[in-house]
């Protein structure tokens, strides 16, 4: 769980980090991605989005790649990828554990 204050990623954190896996994105693109990916289940408020972008930047999980007027784009870093991978494995283990118990 390197790079984070404590505990696992929350859903919004997880999906924001996920949004950078394929390409660089700006704020509005991230919101669109999360909405589409979760079919509207996870709603990303602007306060949450911009706080997360600042937090991830501070923790070195993402890096700013360009500024075009008020539009800033970001990419995921190696550290960000590692954190995402770690979280993915944790979630996978959670699902496996749940399924095992249900059978």
């Amino acid at each position, binding site marked *: 769980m390197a790079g984070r204050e404590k505990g696992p990623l*929350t859903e919004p954190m997880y999906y924001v980090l996920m949004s950078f896996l394929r390409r660089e994105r700006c704020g509005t693109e991230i919101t669109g991605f999360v909405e589409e990916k979760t079919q509207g289940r996870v709603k990303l408020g602007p*306060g949450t989005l911009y706080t997360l972008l600042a*937090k991830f930047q501070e923790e070195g999980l993402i890096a700013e790649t360009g500024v075009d007027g008020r539009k800033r784009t970001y990419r995921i870093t190696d550290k960000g990828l590692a954190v995402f991978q770690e979280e993915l494995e944790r979630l996978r283990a959670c699902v496996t554990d749940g399924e095992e118990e249900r059978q």
Partner: protein
Amino acid sequence: MKRNKLVKKPLPCSIFDIQGLQDWLDGMALQGLFLERLSYHNDRAFFRRGEPRPVRYRLDPVGEHWNDVERKENYAQMGWEFVDAIPRTFYLFSCDDPEVPELHSDPATLSYALKTLVRRQRQDNMLLVLAPTTLLAFLLLANWNEFCANLLLWEHPFQPLVILFLVGLLLALAVYGMYQVIRLNKLRRTLDDGLPLQAGRRHWRPNLPYLAIFLPVTLLINLLSSLAMNYVAMEFLDLDLSALSHPWPGLAQMETAPLPALRPEHYSYMTVNRSPAVPVQEHYTDRGAGFGKPLLKVWYYQAASPSAARRLYHLKRKELEKDLKHYNDTSNSSESITGLTPFVPMEYPGLDVLETASYRYSGLDGWALALRRGNDVLLVRCAGSAPLERGLALLLDALGEEEVL
């Protein structure tokens, strides 16, 4: 015209009660009052009247950068309009579209956003307490001797109480600041646990102008402090040597020759006071009319214990030396002197300490002495009258006599 007039309401809760303030503002919108601006220092919110409708108001913690224009524009793009800001604390945004997601949709992220605010609040509190504490400490240290002397003599008996009150006020400020930080940290823990925020209890707030409360209270405190600080317990009386504790000599007794030029009734006076540490405190000035005439000033203290006498001697001897140096350095005062020699210790039978100095006062020979004997402390300035040896003998004679009071 009336519709354009802003409606002013006192804030019903602390600004750190995020949910409480949001709920209150949302409720006001349902009553047709829409937030226009929020004056934190005046503890008031100003509303514009309109048709009642649901509007959400949300607080967004200020991050590292104040007046973040980029943030405001980005939020506006996502349906949240900037309304006002509480300096260094929160931005206030509103949204009247129920479909737009909450400003903060993740409690844990909001907790992170509050981190900077908590740190800033802690720093502000420290500054708020440290700055006046430093000032108070500086003032106390700069006047340390006077302060200690006053504790012994109670010439200004309310002065320590005012200082105690100020220290209490600083402590209350520190406790209040710490309480706010504790509340914010508790809020963060709640958010970290993914729990929704709970609104705190609302205060009863009279809708009086802020100044109507603040101004009279401040004026009253200032007035009382000023009266207390300036109150002098000493009694100022016409000189009557027979009313003092010992048969102290006046100028007439100090002189061997008659003093026709003296008009002591115009320029002579005495002061008396008492305190638990120094039950007998007397001062008298006996002087001729005008500049350059003989002068006698005597301060006598009888302390309750030898240790109080020692402390008092140290303070008063220092004060006398300081005054003499000041008069030696200034030429335009009626008390100006020249040729001051430093205090030198002298051996004298029966006395614990005796120090003397000499000077010239408008062409007259002058001397000063400070002595301590057991619980007694005596300080004298004399010019144009008896020499030191005779003056000292007369004073010690008087000191040896039984108290007449």
